[in-house]
C-alpha cells in the first residue's frame, strides 16, 4: 500500500512510502515498519500499543484516531493511507505534537481534585447508583489522548478554548460529591473561551475512542453555571 506520512514541523510536507500489507495490521504497525525498515529518522510517539495510554493518537485519512487500535483494513482508501500529526496542537516533528497547551488547559479548567476531608474523617460513601456518581462514571474513563481536542472545530477557530477533554474533566469533578472547589471550577470554565463557546457540533463525542461524550459534560457545565448564576452564587 501507499502511505503518505507528514514530515518535519508545521512547514513540512507529506512523504510517500510503500509498505507491505500484513494480516491484522494496525496503523501503528505501519508507522513502526516505516521507522524500522525504511526511514529511521521518522519521529512518532507510542507506549502501550493496546489502547490504554493514548499516546499514539494521529490523524489517519483526515480523522484523529488511536493508531494502535485502528486496523488498516478499516481505514485504507484506494490502497493508500495518509498519516499526519494531531490537529490543533503544535507539531514538534513529523507525527509528534506538543501537548503542553492541551494539559495546561486541564489545569486552567481547575481539573485537580480538591477534597475537604482530613485523615481523621471516615471514608466518603458515594452510592454507585446515585445520579452524581453515574454522571462521573460517564466521563471518568478519559485517558487524555487528545483525539477530541484535535477533532474540535471550536479549538481550531478559537485557540484559547479550553476544549472537550479539559471541560469533561471539570464536569466529572463538579459531579464528585467529595470535591469542594465547585464554585471556583465553574468560574474557571464559564469564562471567555470556556463551556459557553461549545457549539455542540459533537465532533469530540463522535471521535472519542473511549465512547465518552464530552459534549454531554459541557452541556452539564452550562446547566450548572446557569443554576449557580440564577442563585447568585457565581
Amino acid at each position: 500500500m501507499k502511505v503518505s506520512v507528514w514530515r518535519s514541523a508545521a512547514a513540512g510536507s507529506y512523504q510517500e512510502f510503500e509498505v507491505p500489507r500484513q494480516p491484522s495490521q494496525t496503523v501503528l504497525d505501519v508507522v513502526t515498519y516505516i521507522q524500522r525498515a525504511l526511514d529511521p529518522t521518522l519521529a512518532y510517539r507510542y507506549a502501550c500499543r493496546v489502547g490504554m495510554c493514548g499516546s499514539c493518537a494521529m490523524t489517519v485519512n483526515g480523522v484523529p484516531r488511536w493508531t494502535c487500535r485502528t486496523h488498516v483494513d478499516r481505514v485504507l482508501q484506494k490502497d493508500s493511507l495518509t498519516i499526519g500529526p494531531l490537529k490543533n496542537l503544535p507539531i514538534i516533528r513529523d507525527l509528534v505534537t506538543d501537548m503542553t497547551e492541551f494539559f495546561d488547559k486541564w489545569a486552567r479548567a481547575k481539573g485537580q481534585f480538591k477534597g475537604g476531608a482530613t485523615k481523621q474523617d471516615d471514608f466518603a460513601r458515594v452510592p454507585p447508583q446515585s445520579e452524581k456518581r453515574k454522571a462521573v462514571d460517564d466521563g471518568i474513563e478519559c485517558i487524555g489522548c487528545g483525539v477530541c481536542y484535535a477533532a474540535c472545530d471550536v479549538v481550531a477557530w478559537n485557540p484559547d478554548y479550553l476544549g472537550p477533554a479539559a471541560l469533561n474533566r471539570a464536569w466529572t469533578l463538579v459531579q464528585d460529591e467529595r470535591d469542594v472547589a465547585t464554585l471556583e471550577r465553574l468560574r474557571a470554565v464559564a469564562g471567555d473561551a470556556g463551556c459557553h463557546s461549545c457549539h455542540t457540533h459533537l465532533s469530540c463525542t463522535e471521535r472519542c475512542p473511549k465512547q465518552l461524550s464530552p459534549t454531554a459534560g459541557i452541556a452539564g457545565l452550562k446547566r450548572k453555571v446557569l443554576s449557580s448564576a440564577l442563585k447568585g452564587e457565581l
Partner: protein
Amino acid sequence: MSYRTETTLWIAQRASAAVLALCVLVHLVTIIYAVQGGLTAAEILGRTRGNAAWFAFYAIFVLAVSVHAPIGLRTVLIEWLGWRGSLRDVFLVIFAAILASIGMRAVMAVFA
C-alpha cells in the same frame, strides 16, 4: 470577571432565542393566515394601527432580535476574525442599536 459577562451573555442569548422561537412562529402563522384570506395592505394596516397587543408583540420581537443577534455576531467575530476588546464591544452596541431602531421604525409604521 469575564465568567460573569460570558454567563450573562449566554443566558441573554438563550432566553432571547426562546422568545424568538415563539415570535417567529406567531409571525409566520399570522402571515400565512393573512395571505390566505386575501387581505390587502390597507386591511392589514387597519387591523394593526392602534392595536396595543400587536405593538407589544412586535416590540418584544424586535427587542429579542436586538439582544440575540449581536451576541451571536460577537462569537463570529471572535472565531473568524479574532476580534476582541472594547472597540469590538462598541461596534456590537452600535449594531444592536441599529437593529433596535430600524426594527422599531418598522413596528411604528404599522402601529402609528
